[in-house]
């Protein structure tokens, strides 16, 4: 019998590992394998969670207790959730797991001695679960190994939030299958960050990339707290057909004590574009590479490292809005190809 590993580095995993590393972890591994720069990091696999819960079950009941909760009795669920979360957050890791996590953290610090982001990486895939997974947690700018350990437990504890428990109980999911992976990756001290779509959100055009970007960490853009700069770039030609430089009043920056703070942007930078043209072209190449790799349009989060100027991808997931709308082809081949010209000469029909 092989001992299941508790930790996997991004380079060693891909999308097929999602049951053990979650969607976020699998995607980061896949990106790195495709040759795309992502912040260094590892995934705390579901096996680690399993090991942690089993150790905890020695002392107190966890899973059977959840299964006994009545989703229609909110008071009961709230009380249960509170206790279970406290239990998970307060427990210590089994020694071997503790050591594995600290070792991984040390190795990561050896590569890039910076604070880390700790993010839950849900193993479920369907759309409803994905939005539910959004309730789970992301902790930015985690500065020490002990904080990291605590944040991993907080992520796991989020499985026992009122919403999560209610969701699972309503569907009668067996608790034995419930697990969560956690991504730990080097924090990017972002000069600017944002999102991009490899398909126009406005028209569904597959030949353009829409980029949105603002100063500082990407959380300000994703959270809608700042109006980002916006560009539309020809995917193939690189033509920049739309340039909207916005007044970017605030930015998210790392706080000294860990976490992030909101800070006003200095007057000279507020109305300056947060990306240069060559950087936009680099972004375009990355977008094409990722899209080619996945074979479908992508919705990508990225950041520009303040020190190196390197563009790093934080996340990439399939675009869903337009791909569901794709219906009839614009035109089909016809037996006499000349008849196509009747679109022009035949008048409006």
């Amino acid at each position: 019998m092989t001992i299941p590993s508790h930790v996997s580095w991004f380079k060693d995993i891909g999308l097929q590992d999602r049951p053990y590393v979650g969607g976020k972890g699998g995607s980061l591994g896949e990106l790195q394998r495709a040759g795309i720069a992502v912040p260094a990091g590892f995934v705390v696999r579901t096996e680690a969670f399993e090991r942690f819960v089993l150790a905890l079950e020695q002392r107190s009941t966890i899973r059977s207790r959840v299964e006994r909760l009545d989703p229609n009795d909110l008071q009961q669920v709230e009380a249960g959730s509170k206790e279970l979360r406290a239990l998970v957050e307060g427990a210590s890791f089994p020694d071997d797991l503790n050591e594995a996590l600290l070792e991984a953290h040390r190795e990561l610090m050896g590569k890039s001695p910076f604070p880390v982001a700790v993010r839950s990486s849900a193993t479920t895939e369907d759309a409803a679960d994905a939005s539910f997974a959004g309730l789970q947690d992301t902790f930015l700018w985690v500065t020490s190994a002990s904080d990291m350990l605590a944040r991993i437990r907080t992520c796991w504890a989020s499985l026992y939030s009122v919403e999560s428990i209610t969701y699972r109980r309503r569907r009668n999911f067996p608790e034995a299958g419930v697990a969560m992976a956690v991504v730990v990756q080097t924090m990017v001290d972002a000069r600017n960050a944002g999102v991009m779509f490899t398909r126009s959100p406005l028209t569904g055009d597959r030949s353009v990339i829409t980029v949105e970007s603002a100063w500082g960490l990407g959380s300000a853009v994703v959270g809608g707290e700042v109006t980002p700069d916006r560009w539309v770039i020809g995917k193939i030609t690189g033509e920049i057909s739309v340039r909207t430089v916005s007044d970017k009043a605030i930015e998210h920056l790392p706080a000294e004590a860990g976490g992030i703070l909101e800070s006003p942007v200095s007057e000279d930078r507020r109305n300056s574009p947060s990306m240069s043209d060559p950087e936009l072209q680099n972004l375009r190449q990355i977008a094409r590479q990722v899209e080619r790799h996945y074979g479908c349009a992508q919705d990508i989060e990225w950041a520009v490292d303040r020190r190196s100027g390197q563009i790093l991808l934080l996340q990439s997931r399939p675009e869903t809005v337009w791909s569901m709308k794709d219906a009839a082809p614009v035109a089909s081949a016809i037996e006499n190809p000349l008849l196509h010209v009747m679109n022009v000469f035949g008048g409006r029909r």
Partner: protein
Amino acid sequence: MDSMTKPTGFPLPSSLAVLPGTEAAQAAYPYYMQFTPEDDKRFWFYNSMHFPEPMSAFDMVTAEAAYVALGSVNTRVHCLPTTLGIDYRIVNGRVYIGGNGVTDPEEINRRTQEFLQRAFYYYENWEKLYAQWKEKMMTLIGEAQALPAPALPEFEPLEHVHSGRGVASNHYLLDTYQKTLEGYYRMWHHHFEFLLLGYGAYLTFFGFCKKAFPEISDQTVARMVAGMDAEIFRPDEELRRLARCAVDLRIDSYFVEGHSVDELMAQLAAAGEPGKKWLAELEISRHPWFNINVGDGFYHYHRSWNDDLSMPLASLPGYIARVKAGESLERPMDQLQAERKQLIADYRELLSSDEERAAYDQMITLAHRVFPYVEGHKFYCEHWYTNLFFNKIREFGALLSEHRFFADKEDIFQLTHYEVESAIIDLMTAWSTGSHPRGPSHWPKIVAERRAAIAEWAKHPSPPALGPVPDIIDDPAIVMLWGITRESLDAWLRADSDTDSHEIHGFAASNGVVEGTARVVRSVEEISRLKQGDILVCQVTNPTWAPIFQKIAAAVSDIGGSMSHAAIVAREYGLPAVVGTGNATSKIRDGQRLRVDGGRGVVTLLD
């Protein structure tokens, strides 16, 4: 709806007064070109793309012959289902045109049946018919070249008498003149034989791309279709070749800014073997490639490079400097071909299904088949043949001015083509009777009057359009050739009512953003005012101004679409260009600071 805020039409033709003092000159144009009260009911637009300046009486033949031929092909030859020909009128020297759409569904259906038998035959046999077209064109050019110079000897040459020719020299004036005119009308039929079908096939592909990729730029579609070795690039390529040649022969020091052609030619002739060699190379380039005129061939004063070498030679110092800086100046044809192929493949890959890809393949295949004609015909028609035509008329001008009909041979262009014939017959008569011709006491005053009228008309801009705006513009000819759509008319109307705007919108013709000083060029003669880095603002940018494209930083025009030659040359030179703005030349001051965003089609006035 919002008719309170949005103007719904342009001035009526009847409200457009003939400028005081120019009434006689206006009346000189044939009756069928004059506006009538009936014309108020129709929509007209100023064809400033082809006729950016007031037309002299003779030059109206360029509109007449062109619309006669265009209409024949649309209405009677290929039978376009939804449109007949284009009517034209002239007021204050400005040419207004209006399409004749077909709207009755039954009639469209009837014409469609005809169209399928005619146009489709052309598409199916395109290569064969186009090869035949080139032969016809070369025959026509040969015939024009073979026409004798008009001359009247004092006595009929003895050999004519002894050979029993039986027809005196004065008859050959009329004969040559009529053949000259006939050849010109014929040329325009050739010009339109393929043109609408060619544009139509291109627009079919264009329409598909716009649906499949709603945000694709016009110029990207144009790049997928445009050829690399079209004749229109050739004259400029010859100049680059001559620049390389001058450097290779080590005579480049003779080519300096500001030297006259005569000075240069004299110096080269005296420069021994290398100078002679270069002059021989120049002759190779000139025939036929310098048969390109500095306009679009619609004005007699758009002289060809062959007629006035100063235009092409002025660009040589710039090209020579680039050769010496290590540039090859050669257009990398293989690379351009490969880029186009890649572009087509890349967009193809983005399509949503194999079904769409199959349709895309069909449409671009047809566009590629027809496009050589669209790109190539201008060199033969508007340039080469047109130069021969105007120069032949000029020979008549020389003969008539020799007989004191007017002071200068160029004055002949102030007469309509009917009046030229009457002057020739006057001269023929006088030669035969031994009396004095009547012309010398008749024409000089009229010529002066008409010259003054043109000068006056040129001072006053004309409205971009006249009459009520149609609900839809569904006429493929108007859309294809002039890029006029309901949207562009609305933009013109907005521009009219919103004179404070600091932005001018047009077609995004060539990518890039540039700031610079505006140089508003209203006629070919003003080209020399352009300085390095200026932004060219004109009614219609012209590809045969190619050499000035190495000087300017960007181009802005009143009229033109993304496939206008201006757009093609701008892209070739990598210059931002915004075309089809409707009114840039009247809204932009000479010397004003501008920002031109060729990717968005926006010109911003900076001061």
